[in-house]
């Protein structure tokens, strides 16, 4: 069982959690979903998280992404115990260290593709700093979107774009501030196979090029094979770990 003594995170871990439990109040009882998870994500590592639906993958990802607080246990991001920090510092960690790609893209409908992609920079910077850094970020986002084949879609609203296009914008958004960690929860789960493959190529290319640590939830065995490490989750526990990292 993996819920024994918390382990010390290894020094090159960019993201780790120890003894993470999560339960939800359901009626007057608490429903335990995660039963003590220890996990480490090393810099540049590509990790796949698999498991049946309802196993608790999304719950774990939300905790690792600092969106949700574990009922027990701790999460360490870039060497900092995230829940010991102030809400503001934690928000900054989310902003600078973690990129999210969601199953349902989650773009802001009122913003154009380009604006969605530079949103993290707007959140990060104060008004003055943004004004001076604006064009640099705009260029960066434009470059990325162009590379993703969206050069003629920059001014479009999400509602005018296909799912694949929206997900590519979401990837650009997640990578804008060059975070060391990328968290993707079934990024192709909502796309048809061909489109999904195209999006995945982009995601994996960018990941290896930038050396971002990627934590990816997927149901696709073939995709999992392309990852250095695969974790299998069941009933709130990590049951199997394709442990020994593949030689690089």
């Amino acid at each position, binding site marked *: 069982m993996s819920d024994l003594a918390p382990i010390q995170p290894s020094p090159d871990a960019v993201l780790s959690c120890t003894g993470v439990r999560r339960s939800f109040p359901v009626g007057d009882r608490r429903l335990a979903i995660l039963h003590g998870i220890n996990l480490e994500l090393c810099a540049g590592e590509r990790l796949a998280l698999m498991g049946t639906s309802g196993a608790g993958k999304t719950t774990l990802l*939300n905790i690792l*992404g600092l*969106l*949700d607080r574990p009922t027990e246990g701790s999460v360490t991001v870039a060497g900092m115990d995230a829940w010991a920090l102030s*809400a*503001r510092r934690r*928000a*900054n*960690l*989310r*902003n*600078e260290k973690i990129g*999210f790609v*969601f199953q*349902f893209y*989650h*773009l*802001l*409908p*009122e*913003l154009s593709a380009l604006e969605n992609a530079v*949103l*993290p920079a*707007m*959140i*990060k*910077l*104060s*008004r003055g*700093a*943004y004004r001076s850094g604006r064009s640099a970020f705009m260029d960066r986002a434009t470059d990325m979107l162009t590379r993703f084949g969206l050069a003629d879609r920059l001014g479009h609203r999400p509602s005018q774009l296909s799912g694949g296009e929206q997900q590519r914008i979401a990837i650009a*958004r997640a990578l804008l501030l060059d975070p060391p960690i990328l968290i993707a929860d079934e990024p192709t789960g909502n796309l048809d196979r061909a489109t999904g493959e195209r999006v995945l190529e982009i995601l994996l290319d960018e990941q290896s090029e930038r050396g971002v640590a990627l934590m990816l939830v997927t149901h696709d065995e073939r995709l999992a094979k392309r990852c250095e490490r695969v974790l299998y989750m069941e009933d709130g526990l990590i049951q199997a770990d394709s442990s020994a990292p593949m030689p690089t």
Partner: protein
Amino acid sequence: MFRTFLSLRYLRARKTNWIGMAGILVAVGALVLILSIMAGFLEESRRTLRGNLADLVIQPSFQSSVLQENGDWIPMQTDVERMLEIIREDPGVAAATPQLQWYGIFAPDGGETALEKPMQDAIQLIELVGIDVEGEGEATDFRESLETEYGKKPGLGKFCNVGRPASVEDPFRNLTERRDVVRSRTRPKVPILVGEQLAYLWGLRRGQEVSLVTATYDEGSSQLNETAANARFQVVGSFRSKDNETDSRRIYIDRRALADFLQRDRLWSAVLVKLNDYKRDKDAVRARLWSKLHAEGFLSAPGIRTNEFRTWEDFRAMLLAAIQNEKALMGIMLSLVLVVAGFTVFALLSMMVTEKRRDIGILCALGATPRGVLALFLMIGLWEAVIGSAFGALVGVLGAYNIDAIERKLSSTFGFQIFNRDIYLFDYIPAEVSFSGVAWIVSGAVFSTLLFAAIPAWRASRLDPVEALRHE
């Protein structure tokens, strides 16, 4: 940064926000407009209340001696020329004039008094005011009260066709040149100017003779004389001041003629003073004049705020306070409109927070702090408040400046008189825009909106991002 950007974007993209803004616009506009008109009416009423009161009225209570500060008693002075000299020396004083006031009863037809032919509203004391015509013209708006009737404004004839009251080409000359002009073969007739209402009530016409009856005051014995003085007067004109009361009971007579009629030695009972700048100087001038006049024995009371020395506001203190109070009450009641506008914003923002749950979750995931989310929604409220109230203030001010034209236009379009100019003393809709008032209204609107926006904004900042992102 994202707060400003996103709040403006949401504001523009979501048309429901325009409703909130329009609500604030209407509320602020209406408030500015109504309060301006209210202020106009009140200012106009204040003017009416002032009527023809002089800035300062000095009315000594004549006694034999006056107690000085140092404990000495000195004889009371009654030399009005000396008193006027002292008053006119003061740099804040523009003019000063003596008056002699007494009371009488009208007996228009050949000497009969009203008492012999009682009619309900006829048995009324008439204020006999003895004036120096020139001085009166300088120190009060006596001159104006003559001019309005013969000049710009329509007289009473507009209301009743009984016939215009007595009119006169030059009341100044007629009143002063009495000895040459009006002396009749039999008895000398004293010319009088009659208040317009009074003239109408008695059906007086120019040139008509009337009798006045009064009891005189015997200064020696401090007793009212039982024998009535009775003399013939001739109406040479009428006047209309801004005060109805005055117009319905006052008669102007030459001061010396009145003293003759009353058979008394002292030719005055009060001195009216006009100041260069009433608002600025009233207290200073009053203090200076009081100490000088008291020192010389013209005033007997040991302090300023007495019946001896009054500003026109002292005469109308209660009514003026009522006006002030009305203004305040009106403001308080109308500011409820701002609460309603704030409530609209509250409802719209609450709706928006509910609809935008997912966006809020996304912003959190991208690193927005709860405080940032709070600020984002507060800012939406702020824009609505600022833009809405700015335009509202503009609309209100423009409306207030043009209310008369607007009313005329509306009245002629709809075919009925919205503002009945006949029933007011003024024939336009008065409006006074106070810019500090507008500033107060605008800041009140912004404050109230922010207060109301704070509730949904706070709710947004407390949203659980996981919960917000869970469902598509």
